[in-house]
């Protein structure tokens, strides 16, 4: 193979990084693989050295999701033959023994939680552009590797996707080797840095995300099988519907290590809608909860004291429907989770308020309920250990502000607010996205919600004492966001229901539109308060489907 044989050279570049890479030199932190199935199933290509370290595998740490993607790629592209049961054992072993420490995983928790958050990596622009132009930069931050491993990762991308070498990325140079050299010194007077962006990114990754870290050394020594069985409170927020409260009973599942079964029951506080599901979960690396209850997946971060965990439960073709949850371990003590209303208006009588909790007192008089000055319970409608229904009266002169709720044996701080008027409304998310679908590809929905805002005791908008009044009743509509001449997106993109749920139109070319455009477009989503003419809006991008389902994860199955 010489440069005179370009095909052989190209083939070598393609194959060399993937197959039979040379074992790395000693004392670089490579971790011995002690699992027989990993050795047997991966050993055909990944050589084991005399210290039990396997080529490539031993020089990388990653989240369960990243290991899973790698294992899938080995099956799909590298002809690894794996039974699902073996794949699960391999994934569990690698995620546990070569995972990320909690401190390393927490900043990128939104990645496995499949959140649409705005995140930009500001520590190194070359890394952000080179990696983040195609996929989430959080995927990179979910990895730790040796220098050689980072280099091989870049080589793999260039081998699989040769076009990246000629592709400018986000205005930058991307993987391209050829470009004009800078000759002028920089603003600081130093000679220009003419290194390739890939090389600068590699230097940054090697330095910032190394295989050996003190966090991992500490966590891998301290990690224990989590004992999470028991009753847990669910305190959550379901976009468009508001707070949810309930309980989940977690039991150890004897069929596997770190496995659990779950029995979940919760109520949407505002509407009273009750949900109950059962499922299974697996905890990776001692703290990464991955569960599944029917169509719903659960991704949570278990805190080190095993007293709380938090994350997101989600479903939908693009994981777009979700509930933000916090689970808190329950003891025998009374505990208040929250209330059915987020805000109480002054000068109101007989307002129905339900209190959700656990071990609540069942013999209760109105005098036992404390809500601060000007607010009092007038009647206890019903009292069960998990739910109390009250009627509340708010005086005209009740001061505006955040209130604590007390019952015998329990206090919930900041349980609700007292307000006099709705001064403004706000639509969240401020920027949403949906994808057309229904014919061939699934739809991606977008839920909006409108929350009320009171200016707070200082009466000024936009200050720290503004009160969040929770979801308010609004009339929803779609308006054109004029981006071009004769913009007609609002007619085609889809519909918004009375609860703020946007359902995109079908995929495929639309012969009714100029140029057979798809039903894509960008529009304003407008909310108008029912009681008085207050409006707020958010931007909605309705766009094309994805044709690759990279995002399908099996965690917890």
């Amino acid at each position, binding site marked *: 193979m010489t440069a005179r044989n370009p095909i052989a050279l190209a083939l070598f570049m393609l194959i060399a990084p993937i197959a039979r890479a040379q074992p790395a030199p000693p004392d670089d932190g490579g971790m011995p693989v002690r699992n027989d199935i990993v050795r047997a199933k991966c050993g055909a290509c990944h050589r084991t050295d005399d210290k039990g370290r396997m080529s490539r595998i031993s020089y990388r740490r990653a989240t369960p999701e990243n290991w899973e993607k790698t294992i899938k790629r080995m099956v799909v592209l590298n002809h690894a033959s794996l039974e699902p049961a073996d794949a699960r054992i391999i994934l569990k072993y690698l995620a546990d023994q070569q995972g990320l420490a909690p401190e390393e995983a927490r900043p990128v928790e939104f990645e496995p939680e499949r959140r649409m958050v705005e995140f930009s990596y500001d520590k190194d622009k070359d890394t952000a552009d080179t990696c983040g132009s195609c996929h989430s930069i959080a995927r990179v931050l979910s990895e730790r590797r040796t220098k050689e491993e980072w280099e091989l990762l870049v080589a793999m991308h260039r081998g699989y996707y040769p076009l990246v070498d000629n592709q400018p990325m*986000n205005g930058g140079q991307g993987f391209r080797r050829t470009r004009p050299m800078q000759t002028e010194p920089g603003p600081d007077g130093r000679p220009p840095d003419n290194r390739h962006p890939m090389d600068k990114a590699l230097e940054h990754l090697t330095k910032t995300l190394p295989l050996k870290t003190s966090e991992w050394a500490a966590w891998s020594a301290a990690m224990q099988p989590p004992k999470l069985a028991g009753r847990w409170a669910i305190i959550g927020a379901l976009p468009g519907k508001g707070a949810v409260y309930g309980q989940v009973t977690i039991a150890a599942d004897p069929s596997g290590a770190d496995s659990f079964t779950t029995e979940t029951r919760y109520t949407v506080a505002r509407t009273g809608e009750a949900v109950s599901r059962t499922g299974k979960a697996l905890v990776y690396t001692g703290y990464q909860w991955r569960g599944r209850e029917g169509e719903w997946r659960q991704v949570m971060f278990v805190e080190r004291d095993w007293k709380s965990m938090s994350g997101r439960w989600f479903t939908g073709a693009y994981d777009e429907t979700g509930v933000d949850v916090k689970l808190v371990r329950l003891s025998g003590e009374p505990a208040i989770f929250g209330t059915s209303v987020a805000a109480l208006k002054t000068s109101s009588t007989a307002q129905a308020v339900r209190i959700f909790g656990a071990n609540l007192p069942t013999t209760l008089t109105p005098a036992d309920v404390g809500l601060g000055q000007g607010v009092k319970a007038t009647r206890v409608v019903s009292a069960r250990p998990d739910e109390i229904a009250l009627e509340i009266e708010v005086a005209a002169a009740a001061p505006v502000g955040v209130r604590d709720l007390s019952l015998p044996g329990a206090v919930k701080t900041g349980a609700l607010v007292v307000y006099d008027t709705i001064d403004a409304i706000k639509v969240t998310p401020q920027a949403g996205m949906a994808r057309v679908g229904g014919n061939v590809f699934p739809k991606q929905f977008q839920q909006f919600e409108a929350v009320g805002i009171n200016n707070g005791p200082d009466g000024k908008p936009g200050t720290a004492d503004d009160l969040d009044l929770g979801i308010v009743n609004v009339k929803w509509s779609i308006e054109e966001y004029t981006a071009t001449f004769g913009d007609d997106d609002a007619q085609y993109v889809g519909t918004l229901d009375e609860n703020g749920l946007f359902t995109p139109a079908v995929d495929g070319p639309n012969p009714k539109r100029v140029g057979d455009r798809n039903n894509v477009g960008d529009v304003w989503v407008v909310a108008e308060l029912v009681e008085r003419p207050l409006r707020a809006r958010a931007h909605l991008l309705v766009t094309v489907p994805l044709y690759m389902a990279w995002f399908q994860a099996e965690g917890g199955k």
Partner: protein
Amino acid sequence: MNHLKPINRKAARVERATEPDVVALQRTGLPQLPHFPIGCSLVFSPGWEADRAGGTAGLCQPVERDLFDCHIGCYWPAQVPDQLNHAPDWTSKCAAAQKDWRKIDLIFP
């Protein structure tokens, strides 16, 4: 554009049309990086989900007409199956995308 004067009626209409409210056309100072406040995992330049101005007016449309260039060139590996690795015969059931777009498969890598 103040140094140019419209010399016919159509040019005058274009000038008038760009005065109010056409958000995308009013953006100046390119090249400007798109800003996507809706996620962290999107976009090349311009993006798959949004164009360079952050909207959809400039996307390749309909997407089905353009897909196969992306497929063959492996141009959008995060959005479209690439011909080299994951889906060598993705287009086999779809001779003309405009007619056969319903036969395009979703690929699970």
